[in-house]
C-alpha cells in the first residue's frame, strides 16, 4: 500500500505525513526519557548522600562527546540542505544537478555517521573505564541511573546510525526516482538525529556537571 502525502503537503494538517509522524514519535520519546529524568530527580533529592558526579565520571570525555554530537547535528542539517533546494531540478531531469547534490549529501551524511561512530567509541571507553574500576549499575543509584540513561541514549544513537547508514547507501537511490520524497526523508531522519543530540545536551550537565 502506498503511504499518502510523503512528498506533498496534506491540506488539513499543513504537513507531510512523515513530518507529523516523527513529531508524534518524538513526543512519546520525550516521555520515555522524561520518566528516567524524573526518576533521577526523585532518587537524588530523596538520597541522604550522593556521589560527587564529576569525580566518578570523566567530564573531558563527555565534553568531547558533546562537541562530536553537536557537530554531527550540523553535518546532518547540511546533508539535508545539500539536497532540498535541488529536488525540483532533479524531478525535471537535470542529471548533473542530481549527481552534484548527491555527492555533497553523501559527504555530509558520511561525516554524520562518523560523528555517531566516534561518540559510541568514546562511550565504550568510558564504560570500560568504569567496569575496570569495578563501577557497575548495581554499585549505587547514581551509577544505575548513569548506565540506564546513557545506555538508552546510546541505543538511540545506534538506531539513528542504522537509518542514516541506509539513507547514505542503498536508500539514496530514491533521490533519482522521487527527489522530493527523499529530501523529506533526510529532513525527518535529521529531526530524529537532532532529538538524540538534545537528549545528550540534557544528560551532560545532569549526569556529569551538577
Amino acid at each position, binding site marked *: 500500500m502506498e503511504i499518502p502525502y510523503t512528498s506533498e503537503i496534506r491540506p488539513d494538517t499543513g504537513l507531510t505525513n512523515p513530518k507529523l509522524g516523527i513529531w508524534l514519535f518524538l513526543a512519546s520519546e520525550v516521555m520515555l526519557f522524561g520518566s528516567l529524568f524524573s526518576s533521577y530527580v526523585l532518587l537524588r533529592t530523596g538520597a541522604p548522600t550522593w556521589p560527587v558526579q564529576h569525580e566518578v565520571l570523566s567530564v573531558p570525555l563527555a565534553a568531547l562527546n558533546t*562537541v562530536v554530537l553537536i557537530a554531527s547535528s550540523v553535518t546532518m542539517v547540511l546533508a539535508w540542505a545539500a539536497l532540498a533546494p535541488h529536488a525540483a531540478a532533479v524531478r525535471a531531469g537535470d542529471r548533473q544537478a542530481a549527481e552534484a547534490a548527491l555527492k555533497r549529501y553523501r559527504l555530509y551524511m558520511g561525516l554524520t555517521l562518523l560523528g555517531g561512530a566516534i561518540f559510541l567509541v568514546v562511550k565504550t571507553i568510558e564504560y570500560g573505564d568504569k567496569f575496570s574500576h569495578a563501577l557497575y549499575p548495581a554499585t549505587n543509584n547514581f551509577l544505575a541511573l548513569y548506565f540506564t540513561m546513557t545506555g538508552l541514549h546510546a541505543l538511540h544513537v545506534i538506531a539513528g546510525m542504522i537509518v542514516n547508514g541506509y539513507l547514505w547507501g542503498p536508500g539514496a537511490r530514491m533521490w533519482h526516482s522521487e527527489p522530493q520524497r527523499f529530501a523529506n526523508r533526510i529532513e525527518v531522519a535529521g529531526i530524529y538525529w537532532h532529538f538524540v543530540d538534545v537528549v545528550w545536551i540534557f544528560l551532560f550537565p545532569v549526569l556529569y556537571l551538577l
Partner: protein
Amino acid sequence: MAHDIAAQVRGYLVVFGALLVLTLATIGASYLHLPGTFAVATGVGIALMKAALVAMYFMHLKGERPMVYWPLGLTAVLFISLIAGVLMSEGDHLLGTRWDDAFTTE
C-alpha cells in the same frame, strides 16, 4: 535561490558556534562550585538554551505548522507535570525548608 541556501548554511554555522560557546559556558560554570540551587538553575538553563537552538534551527521548529506545536505543547505540559510531581513529593526538605512551612501563616 542559491543565495538563500548560502544564507541558511551560514545560519546553521552561527548556531553551531553558539552551541559550542554555551557548552564551554556550562563546563566553566561547573568549576565555579555555585551553591546547589544556582548550579542546577545554570546547568539546566544553559541546556534549555542549547535545546531551543537545536529545535528552532536544526529541527526547523521555527516557522513550523501549528499541527506540530499542539502535540509538543501537550508533551511539554505532561513532562513538566511529571518532574513537578516528583519534586513536590520531596519538597519537604528541598531548599532547606519544610514543605508545610510554606503554608504556615504566623
